[in-house]
């Protein structure tokens, strides 16, 4: 299916960019007149995915994070967050709620939040090459969709 509108963003793997990334994505999606709750869900899910790239993909080191947002017919949105970091060995295990490799301060809820706040979460990862997370959500919005 062909996207009606797209946005691409490339950011450095720095924690200060987490806030920018979620605000930029939410801002692009605003054209669909989402509800406050839908926007909140998207900001939170994007924050989790970008944080994963920084913390796990690049181990807090240097790298680039690539974000592509696409809007399709019927107000379906996909957000792809990709890194060229270390990759995930066992995706199934990484997606288990409360699984964390980082101990005390990480809640292990990143994927659980993404899965509960979005309609679909797809993860592709190759060890040593990187990870891409695709988040999908249909925006029901405040009005009947204009598209």
């Amino acid at each position: 299916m062909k996207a009606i509108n797209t946005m691409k963003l490339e950011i450095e793997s720095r924690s200060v960019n987490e806030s920018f990334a979620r605000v930029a994505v939410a801002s692009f999606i605003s054209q669909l007149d989402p509800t406050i709750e839908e926007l909140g869900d998207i900001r939170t899910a994007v924050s989790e995915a970008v944080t994963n790239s920084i913390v796990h993909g690049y181990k807090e080191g240097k790298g680039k994070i690539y974000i592509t947002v696409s809007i399709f017919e019927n107000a379906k949105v996909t957000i792809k967050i990709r890194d060229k970091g270390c990759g995930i060995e066992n995706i199934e295990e990484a997606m288990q709620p409360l699984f964390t490799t980082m101990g005390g301060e990480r809640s292990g809820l990143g994927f659980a939040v993404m899965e509960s706040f979005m309609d679909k979460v797809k993860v592709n990862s190759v060890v040593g090459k990187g990870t891409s997370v695709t988040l999908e959500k249909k925006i029901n919005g405040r009005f009947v969709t204009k598209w």
Partner: protein
Amino acid sequence: MKLEFSGGVLTAFIDGEIDHHTAPSIRETIDKTILQDKPDVLRLDYSGVTFMDSSGIGLIMGRYKLISSCSGKIEVINIPRNMAKVVKLSGIERLGRITIKED
């Protein structure tokens, strides 16, 4: 962030956004004060929080571990309603008194 210590209760009024970027400095300030004041209760007041992802939960879990190791209890109060979803998902209600802000 404002901190208040009275009657054995240390209250931390957290404001702004809690994510992986902002959590470390919030954590350091609270932990330093816990070790110094040795409160019976650590009360995190989330009323000024404008955004949080799972780092806001990690912050509660980490402080719970520290305060428990000092035989204290944790309370989290005034969590804004639009952040209740993350809280419910996490199951942290088991750790202590966790309350959502009434509108």
